[in-house]
């Protein structure tokens, strides 16, 4: 078993003192990021990315991925104690987590949330350990046509699995592709959409867009809601933890279902947020006491947290094997790889064995360490939330500005960041999804390059995407995803013609 040997080497790298320190720092920062409104996983990692420029790629990825794990854990704290989701993927956790806190079961809810997160992540890492090398080996056979087909499938999944209007998803995604095309075209050397401006020559920085779209817009939205935080207190002691752990195995069916949902949604780029909602919905439907959901059922905490963490973790699988991130945060990590000089894609598994397996090993260890840290630091993290927003708000904005500046050492990027922030605020209010925009922005150049190469091979015939069984099945799946909303719409219409229209149901 070569993989196991490599994994042990990975562990050996991770337990070096410096890497362990970086891991703990990353997790603590991540939990803080997850707790604070206006700082999410994606833009938190983006802001801190410049700090890793001087580290080795392995330490850098350990730190950044641990920030991500920390943010996934931290989101649950605010959901349970304050009824405010610190992250979009913990919205579903508030449904039952906050009622539990109101009934004085805050510690049980938090223990259940953290433990479920841990279980979800652990299974996702196991999936990555066993499946990723196979996917990478398989993907080595891919040509440009296959790569473009996979990218097409990834983006079509946004449309097929998205919750909002498919046309708005398409608009947002294409805006991302258009912004990615701005600047010098490396193939032909011509300038695209720069309109004579030298500032646009470099194109739009992906990290700057992330910080603006996710960070600044979040601050604006928080201001709009003028948060007054009234939270519950929680102090987790060992007795409660052990009691909750004793009760949790009863929900093994919920765990398994949520892990499957999470891994599936994470690998296809639907992401952690829809995964948590879907898992909550399924748990409610299959539970014998489904009508008690929303009043403080522990299952209602277990299901979304397990799925969100499984999705968040497995989003790294397509990132390290195919170079296609499964979530905005994974996209930020991907752009980190490019900055550190690593080429994402299947070759990573062959050429950067140490890097890849250290990352996987750090996922195991990072989640164990993360669980311990988060269980012990809950009271302090809750205290951070009590700092008024009029102090924390401007400080977050300052950090966003510093993060945007340090990417390219360009002050003009801070102004771009602000513009992206306003755009993000408006788009979010109108239910345009931001994740496809961001993923298109980071993948735009790669997708275009593989499309062009494929077109070159076929002399401009789209038939190349149907030229062999492999590429045809990927393209076919992509088309199915793309037209999925249309198919459901047509089915509902047909049913409406046959059967009398059912009474409008209340949204769940």
């Amino acid at each position, binding site marked *: 078993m070569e993989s196991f040997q490599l994994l042990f080497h990975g562990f050996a790298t991770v337990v070096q003192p410096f890497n362990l320190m970086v891991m703990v720092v990353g997790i603590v920062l991540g939990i803080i990021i997850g707790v604070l409104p206006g700082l999410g996983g994606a833009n938190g990692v983006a802001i801190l990315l*410049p*700090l890793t*420029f*001087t580290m080795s790629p392995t330490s850098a990825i350990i730190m950044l991925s641990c920030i991500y794990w920390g943010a996934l854990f931290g989101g649950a704290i605010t959901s349970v104690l304050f009824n405010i989701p610190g992250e979009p993927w913990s919205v579903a956790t508030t449904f039952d987590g906050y009622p539990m806190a109101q009934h004085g079961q805050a510690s049980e809810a938090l223990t259940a949330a953290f433990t479920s997160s841990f279980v979800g992540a652990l299974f996702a890492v196991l999936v990555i350990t066993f499946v990723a090398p196979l996917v990478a080996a398989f993907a080595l056979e891919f040509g440009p046509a296959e790569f473009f087909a996979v990218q097409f499938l990834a983006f079509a999944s946004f449309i097929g699995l998205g919750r909002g*209007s498919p*046309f708005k998803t*398409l*608009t947002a995604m*294409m*805006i991302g*592709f*258009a912004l990615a*095309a701005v600047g010098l*075209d490396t*193939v*032909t050397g*011509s*300038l*695209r*959409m720069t*309109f004579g401006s030298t500032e646009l020559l470099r194109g739009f920085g992906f990290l700057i867009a992330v910080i603006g779209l996710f960070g*600044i817009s979040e*601050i*604006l939205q928080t*201001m*709009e*809601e*003028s948060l007054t935080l009234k939270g519950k207190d929680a102090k987790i002691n060992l007795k409660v933890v052990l009691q909750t752990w004793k009760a949790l195995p009863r929900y093994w069916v919920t765990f398994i279902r949520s892990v499957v949902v999470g891994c599936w949604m994470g690998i296809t780029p639907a992401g952690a947020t829809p995964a948590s909602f879907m898992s909550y919905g399924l748990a409610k439907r299959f539970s014998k006491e489904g009508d008690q959901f929303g009043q403080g059922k522990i299952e209602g905490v277990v299901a979304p947290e397990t799925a969100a963490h499984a999705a968040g973790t497995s989003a790294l699988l397509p990132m390290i094997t195919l170079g296609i991130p499964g979530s905005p945060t994974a996209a930020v990590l991907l752009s980190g790889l490019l900055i550190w000089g690593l080429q994402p894609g299947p070759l990573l598994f062959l050429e950067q064995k140490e890097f890849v397996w250290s990352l996987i090993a750090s996922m195991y260890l990072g989640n164990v360490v993360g669980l311990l840290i988060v269980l012990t630091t809950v009271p302090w993290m809750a205290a951070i939330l009590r700092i*008024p927003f*009029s*102090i924390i*708000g*401007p*400080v977050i*904005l*300052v950090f966003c*500005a*510093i993060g945007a*500046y*340090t990417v390219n*050492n360009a*002050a*003009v990027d*801070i*102004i771009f*960041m*602000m513009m992206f922030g*306003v755009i993000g*605020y*408006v*788009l979010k*209010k*109108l239910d*345009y999804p931001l994740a496809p925009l961001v993923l298109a922005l980071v993948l735009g150049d790669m997708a*275009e390059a593989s*499309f*062009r190469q494929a*077109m*070159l091979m076929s002399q*401009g015939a789209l038939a190349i995407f149907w030229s062999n069984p492999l590429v045809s099945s990927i393209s076919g799946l992509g088309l199915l995803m793309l037209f999925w909303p249309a198919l459901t719409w047509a089915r509902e219409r047909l049913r409406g013609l046959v059967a009398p229209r059912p009474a409008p149901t209340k949204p769940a």
Partner: protein
Amino acid sequence: MFLMEWLVAIACMAFGAVVMWDSLRVGAGWAFDGPQAGYFPFYVGLLICASSVVTLVQVVLRRIGRRDRLFATWEQLWRVSEVLIPSMVYVLAIPWLGIYVPTALFIAWFMWRIGKYGAAKILPAALGVPVLTFLTFEVWFKLPLPKGPVESLIGY
């Protein structure tokens, strides 16, 4: 809400049109050595326009017989502008004054106007954040941040 939907959809269409126009400028066809620079972006622009048209039509159709949902109340917009305008000023000041002085002023202004704090709380926060930033970024991580006339007076 409808007004905003309209405006955003039209803005997207305009953006898509610009993308298409610029792609045609650099050539969206097939040259002797393969696809031209505008080949891929042209269709991207086309899709932006097409999907925005559908969104626009949907908004119009939905409008018939339904009450509008508010985009934001005036009060909300006021609160947003209370952050947005000073942030804009802050961001525009950075290229001229460096990052440290605007940061101190920005935090002080924010705490004074929105938090209604007294000088005893404002001063340590407004001075502490830039100093900590300096120590973390310039001293520890050796990442230079923008500096202006005040910093050059001190000797940086």
